[in-house]
């Protein structure tokens, strides 16, 4: 997650405190049905490529940029898989920065480049068959399962059991 000028400037003023921001994540599926993952250098875990959206940037353009930066693969976003908030999208980077994301997840098609470590954020980059995925965050695994089902509707989570107005 290379830090944009926007975030760098805010971090100078707020330190490690929670920053709540939009992010974009890419599920890149090649013609063989394999999913592109990269192993993050900061925590050693396999992860879907993605990161913060810069102010002024469209979410789809952000996912293209992030996938390129982290994996060396050029992609075209085909559809919005879903948009997610929720506390499972909160976390702390190894450097202590607290972040809360609202994640726009895109299903993407590779159109060029080769998977390779492309910057200091990744240790390994490769495609995996869906039945041979490495250990992943539960939410990343569920995104991949949903992407492979091929529903064109954008997914979202809706936790309201009853009208909030009932408290009135």
């Amino acid at each position, binding site marked *: 997650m290379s830090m944009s000028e926007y975030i760098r400037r805010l971090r100078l003023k707020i330190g490690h405190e929670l920053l709540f921001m939009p992010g974009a994540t890419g599920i890149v599926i090649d013609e063989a049905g394999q999913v592109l993952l990269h192993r993050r250098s900061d925590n050693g875990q396999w992860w879907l490529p993605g990161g913060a959206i*810069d102010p002024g940037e*469209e979410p789809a353009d952000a996912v293209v940029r992030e996938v390129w930066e982290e994996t060396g693969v050029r992609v075209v976003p085909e*559809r919005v898989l879903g948009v*997610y908030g929720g506390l499972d999208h909160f976390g702390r980077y190894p450097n202590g920065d607290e972040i809360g994301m*609202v994640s726009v997840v895109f299903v993407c*098609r590779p159109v060029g480049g080769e998977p390779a470590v492309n910057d200091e954020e990744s240790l390994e980059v490769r495609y995996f068959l869906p039945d041979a995925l490495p250990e992943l965050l539960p939410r990343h695994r569920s995104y991949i399962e949903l992407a492979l089902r091929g529903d064109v509707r954008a997914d979202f989570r809706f936790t309201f059991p009853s009208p909030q107005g009932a408290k009135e």
Partner: protein
Amino acid sequence: MPISAYLRNLRAKVGHDLLFMPGVTAVVLNEAGQVLLQQRSDNGEWSLVSGVMDPGEEPADAIVREVWEETALHVVPERITGLYTGEDFLVRYANGDVVLYLDITFACRPVNGEPPRVNDDESIDVRYFPLDGLPSMKQFHLTRLADALRNEPHARFKFDGQEGGGGH
């Protein structure tokens, strides 16, 4: 966490600086095919109902909460119709704060046929309008309404300067 607590803390440190935040908008259509609009108290303009997400909140929960707070209607979010950002979504508030929104627009259905009513101080008036009798509204409201009325299953987004979503 309420957005007010998050923002108060952040604003104390960053002043009026630009913040890029996720927001939600509702296109609520009743059984007669009329659309719910609010007349905003801050500028007197008619608009779709929208609001800022709380950190940790799901977008769909945020839109249910916002529609309730502003119109006393309980709605069910049915699908994400589009993602929007850019100049139209850059807001300079009267106190000098600057916020750019990434807007997630939902098509929503009211759970009953009750009329909306002004429910907080953000609105002067709230009501359903027939589509052939809309009040004057800014283009970015009309665009999001038109996108929702296409009844496409996928969410629309912009990519590389082009309108997109599902068709790539």
